[in-house]
């Protein structure tokens, strides 16, 4: 009888579980009247995720974090770039097949309702993936019940329910159970708690951290909420308009942010102390339209440190500390920033 097995660790502990190189997605837009334009939703993304770590991606709407997650999940085809999973290229001859890759990489979305089939009971939804991978129905359903137990939903009470009979928090638990059903090694969590109330958010975050221990999982955790990312992530990647602004260990990003955008994001958090309220917004304006991003550094239009060089050349991601990189002329020595003139607004 076929049975799903945890895929073996092929590369050993030193081999990153996921390596993404130069990943890009350009969406064509525009019409016959306005001519062809492209949105560079993700424009050259490099990242690595070590085994059993949690990488957090933060950024504002339109920065490309959700497009990045869908590219990594292979839900949409990239314009450029490659993905290496545990040392094997994804979707190329001699590498790991797309079907096998998608079994080992699972995803949980923000909207818990629209990501479940409303016509399937939740045990059927959870059993669906394993059945596609050849597990007999009875066995897949039995496994679904175990998983419901693991995510804190009593199978006797919930297994036969439909998605609309559950609360948002319960549905998100079902989505997590479904993601676990194929014994994945990497789970992409795209804003998994953003739609939940605070008290439920805490329950789901605790559950995610428990499951990570229990099943030895690796997480890619995408969120706009810096507090949540600080809570769960080992390393943090900050995105701005399709590019990486800064990446580094959680401690370094939150205690010693290097990129002016990271600092501004951190300073935009409500202070949680009513006697020390913010008096000045750290940034003015909204993020620019990704259809027509600023030249050079994409953040320069909102940056207090911007100089001429920032408009003329786009900064590359450069190492500025231990495993800590930032894409900013102002923080990289020898970038020419020191000799450049202040921008005339």
């Amino acid at each position, binding site marked *: 009888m076929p049975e799903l097995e945890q895929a073996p660790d092929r590369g050993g502990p030193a081999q990153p579980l996921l390596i993404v190189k130069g990943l890009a997605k350009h969406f064509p837009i525009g019409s016959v009247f306005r001519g062809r334009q492209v949105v560079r939703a993700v424009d050259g993304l490099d990242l690595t995720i070590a085994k059993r770590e949690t990488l957090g991606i933060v950024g504002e709407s339109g920065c490309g974090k959700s497009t990045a997650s869908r590219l990594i999940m292979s839900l949409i085809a990239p314009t450029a770039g490659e993905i290496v999973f545990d040392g094997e290229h994804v979707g190329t001859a001699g590498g790991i097949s797309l079907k096998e890759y998608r079994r080992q990489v699972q995803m949980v979305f923000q909207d818990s309702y629209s990501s479940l089939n409303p016509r399937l009971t939740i045990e059927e939804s959870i059993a669906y993936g394993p059945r596609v991978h050849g597990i007999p129905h009875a066995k897949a359903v039995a496994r679904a019940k175990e998983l419901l137990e693991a995510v804190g939903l009593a199978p006797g009470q919930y297994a036969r329910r439909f998605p609309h009979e559950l609360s948002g928090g319960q549905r998100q638990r079902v989505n997590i159970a479904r993601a676990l059903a194929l014994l994945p090694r990497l789970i992409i969590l795209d804003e998994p708690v953003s739609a939940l109330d605070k008290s439920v958010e805490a329950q789901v975050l605790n559950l995610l951290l428990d499951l990570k221990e229990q099943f030895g999982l690796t997480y890619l955790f995408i969120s706009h909420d810096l507090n949540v990312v600080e809570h769960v992530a080992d390393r943090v990647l900050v995105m701005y308009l399709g590019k990486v602004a800064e990446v580094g260990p959680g401690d370094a990003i939150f205690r010693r942010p290097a990129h002016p955008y990271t600092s501004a994001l951190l300073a935009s958090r*409500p202070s949680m102390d*009513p006697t020390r309220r913010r008096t000045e917004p750290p940034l003015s304006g909204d993020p620019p339209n990704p259809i027509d991003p600023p030249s050079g550094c994409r953040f320069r239009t909102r940056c207090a440190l911007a100089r001429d060089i920032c408009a003329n050349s786009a900064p590359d991601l450069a190492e500025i500390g231990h495993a800590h990189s930032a894409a900013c002329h102002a923080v990289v020595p020898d970038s020419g920033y020191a000799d450049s003139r202040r921008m005339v607004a």
Partner: protein
Amino acid sequence: MTGQPLVRARGLRVSFISREATVTAVNGIDLDLDEGEVLCILGESGSGKSVTLRALLRLNPKGKTVMTGALAVAGHDIMTIPDGRLSAVRGKVVSMIFQEPMTALDPVFTIGYQIAETLIRHEGISRREADRRALELLELVQIPSARRRLGAYPHELSGGLRQRAMIAMAISCRPKLLLADEPTTALDATVQIQILLLLRSLQQELGMGVIFVTHDLGVAGEIADRIAVMYAGRIVELGSTVDVMRQPFHPYTQGLMGATVHSGTRGKRLTTIPGAPPDLRFPFEGCAFAPRCSHASDACRESMPAFRHPGPGRAVRCIRVEDAEIKHSPKRVSAMA
């Protein structure tokens, strides 16, 4: 203080009637708001916070809603005022901003036209004069290149600018009371703080009273003078922002604070509130939070706890809280600071 508070609600109940069930979303609220005061109603989904806010303008769907109790806003009795006169209150004395400016603004008219329309309707001024005032308002809410933006349609603006345009429309007639229903929830972090600071400065400049509904404790901390915590249709804790955030008394408020992720929780398990809020279709006796409360006793389940006053200006619906020595008039829920 002179005479009446700006908002005065006593025993306000709002029920929604359908064929299947009657849901009492707001179940007896007493509330006072002074002129120029900012009150945050803090609660999770289904706590009745938005329904309370809508009740102040009688915006809940007619024919399906039953409102009882007493409710007066700026001297108008909202319970009895006829519909015809209500439209003179809406927008002029009390106005409202919503979470989603895209659905609150009319997509087929320009921003400038929509602001001017409000002014013409309430102030009876000419179109030319209204256009001039609309420009001033856009400048007041710090929209860059305001003159050009007057001719913009809602879809041509970014989320932050749309929210600013909606605020401009809401304050166009200098209302005495501004109602805000999660106006920053849909915005990015760097834009949210801009809008909060804008609202704070406008509130001080215009001396408006503001009732701000949010689920986010941090947002309440940035803007509110007082916080009212709602749970299952009732206010369970009320006090100044500093008091409530420094020393919450109600177990639900304490639970919310513990469950809020912030810097410093990394590596620790979050304390959670077990279970889920009650189903308001079924009436219940006693404290609505008792099934989720680790301190609950039989007395909690027997009857709804009355307000206790553990300090000046504070009120908590929990039998474990002791009244402070300070004398309070028992009918006055919200002592003025």
